């Protein structure tokens, strides 16, 4: 019933607009040139009003919504990105205000007046030069600074960076930490099945102590290298608080290095939000469960991190050992590799 009422009301408004417009048109036709000049004036004034409200509105709304923006970057390189964003914001902001103001001002000031001609001003090469060179200089600055940061962000990871593997699948994330040996075991997509979700090859002993937790934990102020891949379709590792986006693709490994700088607890205080948590999201459409691909992320102090690590058992231990799955692999069956739990904390 409400739907019909709304439709009826909209139709009535539409008819009203149309009838008034038609009447207005008849009157204007009768009035001739004067009516046209009035229209020019009214629209000119509207342009001025719009431009003022628009510029004021943008400043106000940016201030109003700023509490909802992302808090301070929780990673080292994130500050570089934020700096770059702010430099660009200032430069483009100046251009934005000047050009929009000029447009609105001219649109009002030069509305049609009786007996006036437009000013014949077809070209001026000096002006063209000015507005070629000035943007060129501004853009050069942005390119130089931007690329300076870009190469720092995408450069090689430091040798002591800890490796964490993130694999996207429809519709959740799989993460793998190297065990005490500090090395991720090799994996092979042909070994993937319901249990062995990333296809770890247990013939390779590096994989026997690999850990596959259901949350991501990072130790604060330690460099990490994320090794990113996908099992089925394209996903994208989105860690907005750390200023990270990197596609996860099947058959094409990617990576991203970063150093978290603010622990979860510190961020709860900074944002005054006891419910605050870092989240990993998927940023590339991957199917029906795309918007639910979430994994919790924790940045821990050294103590918290060690405590968490103590509790982790190797994937082999918890999911493979003693199952039919184990029979696929020779090494485990021969018992040449020790896989005791509880020794996962050293050197990680």
């Amino acid at each position: 019933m409400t739907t019909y009422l709304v439709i009826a009301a909209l139709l009535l408004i539409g008819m009203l607009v149309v009838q008034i417009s038609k009447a207005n048109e008849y009157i204007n036709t009768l009035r001739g040139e004067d009516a046209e000049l009035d229209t020019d004036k009214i629209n000119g004034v509207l342009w001025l009003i719009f431009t003022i409200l628009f510029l004021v509105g943008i400043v106000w709304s940016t201030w109003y919504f700023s509490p909802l923006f992302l808090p301070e970057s929780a990673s080292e390189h994130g500050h570089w990105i934020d700096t770059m964003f702010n430099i660009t914001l200032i430069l483009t902001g100046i251009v934005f205000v000047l050009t929009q103001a000029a447009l609105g001002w001219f649109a009002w000031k030069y509305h049609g007046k009786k007996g006036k001609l437009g000013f014949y001003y077809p070209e001026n090469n000096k002006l063209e030069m000015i507005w070629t060179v000035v943007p060129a200089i501004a853009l050069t600055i942005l390119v130089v600074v931007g690329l300076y940061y870009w190469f720092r962000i995408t450069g090689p990871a430091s040798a002591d960076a800890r490796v964490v593997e993130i694999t996207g699948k429809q519709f959740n994330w799989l993460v793998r930490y190297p065990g005490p040996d500090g090395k991720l075991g090799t994996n092979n997509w042909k070994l993937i099945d319901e249990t062995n979700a990333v296809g770890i090859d247990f013939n390779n002993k590096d994989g026997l102590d690999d850990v596959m937790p259901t949350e991501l934990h990072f130790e604060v102020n330690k460099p990490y290298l994320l090794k990113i891949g996908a099992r089925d379709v394209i996903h994208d590792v989105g860690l907005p608080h750390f200023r990270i986006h990197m596609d996860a693709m099947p058959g094409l490994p990617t990576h991203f290095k970063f150093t978290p700088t603010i622990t979860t607890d510190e961020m709860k205080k900074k944002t005054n939000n006891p419910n605050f948590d870092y989240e990993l999201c998927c940023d590339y459409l991957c199917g029906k469960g795309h918007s639910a691909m979430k994994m919790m992320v924790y940045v821990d102090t050294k103590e918290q991190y060690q405590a968490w690590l103590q509790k982790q058992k190797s994937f082999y231990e918890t999911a493979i050992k003693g199952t039919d799955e184990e029979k696929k692999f020779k090494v485990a069956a021969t018992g040449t590799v020790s896989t005791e739990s509880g020794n996962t904390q050293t050197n990680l």
Partner: protein
Amino acid sequence: MSTKDLHHGHSEQHAGAAITDHVHYQDTEGVIRFEADHGHHDSDRNKKNFIHTYIFSTDHKMIGKQFLITGIIWAIIGGGLSNIFRMQLGFPDVPLHFIGTIFGDKWAPGGKMTPDFYNMLITMHGTILVFFVLTAGLSGTFANLLIPLQIGARDMASPVLNMLSYWFFFLAGAVMFTSFFLPSGAAGVSWVFYPPLSAIRSAAVGSETGADFWLISMALFIVSSLLGGLNYITTILNLRTKGMSMSKLPLTIWALLITAILGLLSFPVLLGAAILLIFDRSMGTSFYLDKIYISGIGAMPHEGGNPILYQHLFWFLGHPEVYIVILPAFGIVSEVLAVNSRKPIFGYRAMILSMLAIAALAFFVWAHHMFVTGLNPFVGSVFVFLTLLIAIPSAIKVFNWITTIWRANIRYTPAMMFSVGFVSLFISGGLTGIFLGNSSIDIQLHDTYFIVAHFHIVMGVAAFFGMFAGVYHWFPKMYGRFMNRTIGFIHFWVTFVGSYCIFWPMHYQGMAGVPRRYYSHGAFESFNKFGALSEFITIAAIVVFLAQLLFVFNFLYSMYRGKKVTELNPWKSNTIEWTTPIHPGHGNWDGPLPEVHRGPYDYGKDGEDFIPQTVPMRPGETTHHG
């Protein structure tokens, strides 16, 4: 084509002309002559053959109208889809039972749309608006309508290819429309159609038969676009009337020429990408696929392909495509601004050079869509440089437009309002491009609502504004009547303010990291804070959509009941389309073709309000354009 038509006095060397029923040929000086049964107007033709005049017409003006009306229908569908998915984002709890009624209950059990249906909506919204409305609807309409009229030609170089161009477009649309009602629905893998999601049927419902239909439809569409583009280029280069040198062409024609060249060079690449994707989907090849395991299905046999290959091919079209969309709007806006400012466009040559620069650079910036796909950082840096380079010609255009209205005597028609609005939108959307083009900032903003805001403002709404400006401005030439101005002004202000209300707040969502193409942001503590803002955006989107219905009403009403045009040149314009009769027949000019003596922008020169292009130069008069 009967032998009787061929007999109609055609000359051997101009076989293309034989296909029109009004034959024209080109004499040795390159001047088009016209042999026609005079007084053969639309009204007579109507009685003679309805199908020939309105359906399978070879008259460029009729084909232009066919593109326009088909484009409007697609715009209503494409815009309507966006309102449905905005409901899911703004008001997820409101049941929408009509979805079940139209598309089938499985898409919206209990009136609640499913994620698969949402993905289908966003995919079709993007595809329809980018290709069917802003490419075919915009270029197709104005290239067909304006090229022969503004260069002084009887028709296109090849009218039959022109007709085929429309009918391939129509077929592409028919296939796309049918796909909505397939059991597995239309394609739902986003308009960029990245494999593997689009290549593996079992990866998503939206990747089943609907994706096949999408690919077939796109192939047909590309054929249409190529047939049209070839024709536009040939016509502009060969069929200009006497005196119409390239340096006297209106900027609309320059823009349409450059657009056609861009399309001709880039669309075949998309066709190639689509064909390889069809092979991967249906014939077991592995161009884009490697090492894939689908849950519940198992390991796929594909090996050795590369998903990035598709992205390179797609964006090699995809980026020029955004200029294919915006360049015709550049041309229309330049023309409308000059005519209604009663001033020459500022920097005619700079405008052409900047369009050429944009077109050339358009082919070398595609990888800026791929900064975070694991592209080599050095390659990324080259594309940063080239991408920001393109801001320079864009800035030149903006400053020239603003200078054009400086010290003008502005006559506000709805077309002029939309043109000034276009400049405002192009500034706003262009400047946010400087953020996204810089790879280090793109790391953060990639695939968030910031990019949605950016491209909707700069190429979506702005291109629409160019289209509206064109329709309001040339409606008198199309139908011999004016559109209602008052409704036009209301349409403008609601659309202009409303569009900013829809898209400006999306920048804020993007800066907060909110990802695009999300069915719901509820699962994330960081993203679900924008409920009220999402509601506001949805309401604004619905209001803007309703305002477009006002435009459609105005269009249809004015076609039959609008104020009649009583003078040849109602806008006091210099370009030669206004020297044709109020209702030009097939062949455009009743007598000989007009001769052109000057550039198109002599407004306010030497104390004259305007001097049409057909007026000879006075002794001692200087020209500023070439």
